[in-house]
């Protein structure tokens, strides 16, 4: 993302955020599968597919924009 400075691309940090949050949400969704929380439409298990989507995006971003040596 930069030319003058060799900064880790912001997209890598976005990927880290997605990955960590995706794992946390996905796992908590699985953990509550048999006892869904007292929310509307809890039967749709939104945390599982939403967390899964975030994990997939996180892996994609972290892989594509990971720091490589001295290049940004």
């Amino acid at each position: 993302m930069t030319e003058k400075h060799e900064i880790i691309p912001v997209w890598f940090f976005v990927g880290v955020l997605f990955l960590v949050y995706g794992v946390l949400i996905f796992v908590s969704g699985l953990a509550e599968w048999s006892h869904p929380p007292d929310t509307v439409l809890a039967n749709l298990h939104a945390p599982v597919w939403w967390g899964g989507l975030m994990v997939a995006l996180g892996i994609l971003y972290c892989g594509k924009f990971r720091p490589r040596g001295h290049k940004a």
Partner: protein
Amino acid sequence: MTAILGMLVTDRLVKLAPVDLAIVIFYFALVLVIGFYLKRFATTGEDFFMAGREMTAWVAGLAFVSANLGSLELLGWAGSAYQYGILAAHWYWIGAIPAMLFLGLVMMPFYYISKTHSVPGYLQLRYGTAASGLSAVTFAIMTILMSGVNMYAMAVVMKVVLGWDLNFSIFVSSVTVAIYVAAGGLFSAIFNEVLQFFLIWFGALLIPILGLIETGGWKGMVARIQHNFPGQDFTHMWSNMGHVQDNPMGMHWAGIVFGLAMVQSMGYWTTDFLVVQRVLSAKDIRSAKLAPVLGSFFKMAVPLIVILPGLLGLALLPMHLVPDAPNLPPGAHSYNEVLPLMLARYCGPGLLGLGITALVAGFMAGMAGNVSAFATVWTYDLYRPFIRKDAPDKHYVSMGRWCTLIGVFISIGTAYVVMSFASIMDYVQALFGFFIAPLFGTVLLGMMWKRVTKEGGFWGLLAGTTSSITLFLLMHGKLPLFGKSAEQWIGLLTFNPHAKGLAQDMFQSLWSCTTCVVVTVLVTMVTKPRPDSELKGLVYSLTEVAHEEKVGLLHRPVFWGGVALALLVVLQIIFW
């Protein structure tokens, strides 16, 4: 940590699970890590205040939109959607897109070629110190007040959803912002704005998805709203604006077109340094032009996560929300609480933490945007010209860091001012009207007409700002001029004695900008113009705008600007 938070809890909509707390805490840790990581790169004034002018169009464009997507946006406009219906989307579409495209395709070359560091910096080059100083002072006041608004919005979220103590919330978030912006300057602010952009989308998008599933789609939602609020039209954008009595805002279409689209939004998106600063960080002129154009597409999509949840609140919430007030009766909720209420409706552990973090991130990014812009304007447009002219670059970077810290702490005090207004957005619109609308007149005349003089620019800006404040006081009954009541003044100035807050603000902007333009022209006609040689790179007729390198159609800002405009027209027709 949980024990400490538990002690602060008073009353709440939801209780955070450990996974939610982990999500919130990880966000705070990550932004601090990024801030300290970027500190090593923010060593010169160009780096600290302008992020080295090396951002790509995508990063600058996302930061450009994200700087405007704070908690204020999320809570305030979701609340406005509950209060006024889909009319609130005018502020995202006709009240934003044309102005963003105008900035990118018309005005950005002047800002970029002049190599100014700020909007007051452009005024300094075009009009001299007086107009620049006036603009810098008003901008500094506005940013600090805006920071206070953001704090209030965040404190509301924490109070309503989690029951956290207001002072605790403000302290933790504002100290975090102060640290990471003081460390990495605009680099930090932009990085975190990009992070926040994705967080907000992923934290809030589930509300409209699940809401539309619950209502059975758009038609089901409209049917429920009509059932809950019979006789009121909350779901049309233009067809109910022929008469002010026909829509919940009390607004005529002329106010939207002439007040919002042509003055207020133009003023905000093209001269509010908070957003313009992000584009100035672009690496070249094509990126600088493209960034607002790309941003316009994202802006067009934001109603999905802001306006739609407000409409879903009208359809689904069992209670009727009320205007904000310091002491709401037990069990009552204000318009501004609609988004947290909808979040609590659908989100259990994990997702709730994500939604809360998105709101906190929105607050923090909004505040970071304000303080980074404040630090730049204070250091470059007030401190350097008026207090210490020839200090080394390192000194100004140091001043910027200290100014960031001080700005955060000053703005904490302004958070409480917000509470005396019926709606957060009414308050902010009033601020925009005070300073932004006249500034747009001054900047645009300066760019487009070489005859405008220094004196014309200064006196026009001063007259516009003064008239704006005067009109505000008249319409709010604070200045009983000529024995007329506030309602009489509202009727006179907006052509409708029943016009509500946002409608009043539109006309306040329109009249103050008109005043600015008229006074600028009159003073210009009796004062001496600057020679052409001094205006090269600052005025349209005397500037050779560098042509973009020869690129294909799909890489040209003007092409994507055309696509954005076409999409805007389609949206207006769909929701007519």
